[in-house]
């Protein structure tokens, strides 16, 4: 007899999903002018969860107008200490409704409940708490003694951390006195709509936060709208380029947080067991749907074989399946389209001569799934070493010296994240000085905190979110009123 974990599903009864959702404009839920709608689906079961409105040009106009009015009449001129009260209230409501939000996020996104419960939702609340603290102290943040808000921010977020990315965008914007129009990803709108309810519950003045659901076209209408002062986007490098073209020549401020191909660099004096955990957390956390994922493992040749063997043994213990089960480690791939992209890139790994290893786990019959996968024998020339896969696929490369590690880590158009594993402190600092990445972790990976700025170099984008640096994205250093 063996110790088999019995199913331990989190209850779905804590969420109440409506069959249809409108757009959140000026503090009210309203249907799209066109009446268009799209369906959002549970990626673990392919069950339709709800129908949401698709915002068109008229709706974007209305939302931007509502945000402008709120900025001019209420929010822009409100003392920081009063804005802080609303942010604190929102943070507390997120905590109070955390279980409901976690289940909702897992249903809509496919990520394991243990991640939505222990990472996404607590961090989202933490971002509001942190920025609430800044709202009345902006004069001390290094942007002049009385920095001004920018006005109306148009924000477009991805599907990998729906509520957390919303918090990264909305919390600093509101703390700095801006109003927002936010578009969640088309496959994961539900927690953003729940957040709209939270804004109502918190008594946030109408129009300070507006949520427009829809697909790529809605996003394009929003960033191209002449009534906004600032665009913040997190998503693919390809869409980032389109946005940059659209914003060029306007007075809009822009921050972009785009793709990545992070290197997790393991030296032969690393704490091996913890490095294995860091590799797992780096690329299999959230099914690898993480822009800063450690998708390239750079391992020193002297320990490559033992490290890979340890890693494979560890991957054998990962539990893939029902995302609502509290013991699930690997959930569903967010959409059929994303699964297709992952499969294509994995196939290119086979075609180009890398060796594929797949963790031994059965995949459910329904839904979209991809097992944890490791490619060894990967070289810098392979597509799987260069292109962002955004899935649970690790490419293993080796190096001989620290110089070679730096060279290979930096040899990518991206520059979002890297990890360094060594017990030697001086080498950590030496490496960190040379790596061209916005976030560098030492002896850990994929750790986030609202006080720590996040952002990229090169084609991973520009601008920072979080920390004092993140406030700069929503403030004008000119002396204000």
């Amino acid at each position, binding site marked *: 007899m063996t110790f*088999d974990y*019995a199913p331990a599903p989190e209850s779905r009864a804590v969420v109440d999903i409506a069959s249809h959702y409108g757009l959140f404009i000026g503090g009210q839920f309203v249907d799209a002018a066109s009446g268009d709608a799209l369906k959002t689906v549970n990626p673990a079961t392919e069950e339709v969860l709800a129908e949401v409105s698709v915002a068109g040009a008229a709706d974007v106009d209305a939302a931007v107008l509502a945000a402008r009015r709120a900025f001019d009449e209420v929010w822009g001129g409100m003392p920081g200490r009063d804005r802080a009260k609303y942010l604190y209230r929102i943070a507390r409501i997120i905590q109070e409704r955390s279980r409901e939000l976690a289940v909702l996020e897992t249903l809509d996104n496919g990520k394991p409940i243990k991640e939505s419960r222990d990472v996404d939702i607590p961090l989202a609340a933490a971002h509001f708490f942190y920025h609430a603290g800044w709202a009345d102290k902006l004069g001390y943040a290094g942007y002049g003694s009385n920095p001004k808000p920018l006005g109306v921010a148009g924000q477009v977020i991805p599907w990998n951390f729906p509520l957390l990315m919303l918090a990264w965008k909305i919390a600093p914007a509101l703390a700095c006195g801006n109003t927002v129009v936010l578009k969640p990803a088309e496959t994961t709108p539900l927690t953003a709509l729940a957040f709209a309810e939270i804004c109502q519950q918190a008594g946030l003045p109408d129009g300070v936060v507006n949520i427009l659901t829809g697909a790529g076209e809605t996003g394009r209408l929003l960033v191209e709208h002449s009534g906004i002062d600032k665009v913040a986007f997190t998503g693919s490098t390809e869409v980032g380029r389109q946005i940059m073209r659209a914003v060029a020549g306007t007075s809009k401020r822009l921050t972009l947080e785009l793709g990545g191909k992070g290197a997790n660099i393991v030296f032969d004096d690393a704490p091996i*067991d913890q490095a294995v*955990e860091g590799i797992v957390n780096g690329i299999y956390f959230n099914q690898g749907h993480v822009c800063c994922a450690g998708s390239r493992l750079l391992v020193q040749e002297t320990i490559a074989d033992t490290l890979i063997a340890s890693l494979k043994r560890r991957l054998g213990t990962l539990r893939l399946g029902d995302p609502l089960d509290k013991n699930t480690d690997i959930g569903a791939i967010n959409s059929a389209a994303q699964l297709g992209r992952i499969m294509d890139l994995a196939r290119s790994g086979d075609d180009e001569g890398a060796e594929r290893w797949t963790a031994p786990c059965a995949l459910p019959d329904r839904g979209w799934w991809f097992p944890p996968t490791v490619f060894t024998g990967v070289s810098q020339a392979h597509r799987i070493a260069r292109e962002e896969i955004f899935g649970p696929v690790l490419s293993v490369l080796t190096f001989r010296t620290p110089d070679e590690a730096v060279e290979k880590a930096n040899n990518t158009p991206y520059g979002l994240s890297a990890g360094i594993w060594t*017990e030697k402190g001086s080498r950590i600092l030496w490496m960190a000085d040379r790596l061209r990445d916005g976030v560098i972790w030492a002896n850990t990976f994929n750790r986030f905190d609202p006080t720590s700025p996040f952002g990229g170099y090169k084609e991973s984008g520009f601008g920072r979110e979080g920390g004092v640096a993140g406030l700069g994205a929503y403030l004008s250093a000119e002396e204000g009123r």
Partner: protein
Amino acid sequence: MAGWPEGGTNGLRAFLHGLPGVDEVGAQGRAAALGTRSIKTSAKVWAVDMSISMVDLTTLEGMDTVGKVRALCAKALRPDPMDRTCPSVAAVCVYGDLAGVARECVGDAVHVAAVSTAFPSGRASLEVKLLDTAEAVSAGADEIDMVIDRGAFLSGDYTKVFEEIQAVKAACGDAHLKVILETGELQTLDHVRRASWLAMIAGADFIKTSTGKVTTNATPPVTLVMLEAVRDFYEVSGRRIGVKAAGGIRTAKDAVKYLVLVKETAGEEWLTPDLFRFGASTLLNDLLMQRQRLLTGHYSGPNYVTLD
């Protein structure tokens, strides 16, 4: 055999200091993450019974008497007198002078473990330690829980620790040797990993966290590192060494968390009383109350388990 030294200070030192380091934050994080596993229904029933069968039911007090040890033995044999399906514990654990009494009571139904080598401090000459061990074995102990010389370990005299373990192992004869690292005094996880390997290559059958007599006893991160050590030792030697988590584990919930650590670190093979033990006294009653609740559907209470 694998390439570890058979003794000699330089060889031992080079080997132990060549082991990969342990990142404390990472190890704590991993142990905490495994602590969030949700063990329900059939899995919990299995885990509670397995935990009961892994308990070394312990009394190690200056005030221990023949009567106290007899009561403990009765409890060890039949932890729940109202339920014959309840498994007995793995062993009773007593001081050496009471090993004979324990053996008389339990026959060969459960193991008798005796603490030895000037437990808990280990501050005595090797001769005294060997005599302590030999007496307990001849009185009927078939498991010896020895302590390492932490002073020697912390001052880098690995040879002394190594040779003492070897000598005690020889004095044990057929008795199984558990080597107590007293991790609360070793303090760092790097020390825990080195001491684990030192004990294993010197001949330990089990490595055990603690005496229960210092402030910090078994913790999940320490046990995690020891489980990694036995797993890695098996890979190179083909020999499975057991792990005993002792002291501070008082609730069924905690015990189940340790079983999760065992399963997901060393593997299912270690989920047997031959390879994993709990050194505990109050833990057993909480396991019994949980067992009663799982079987009857009703919460039990302290009046429905025996106090011994």
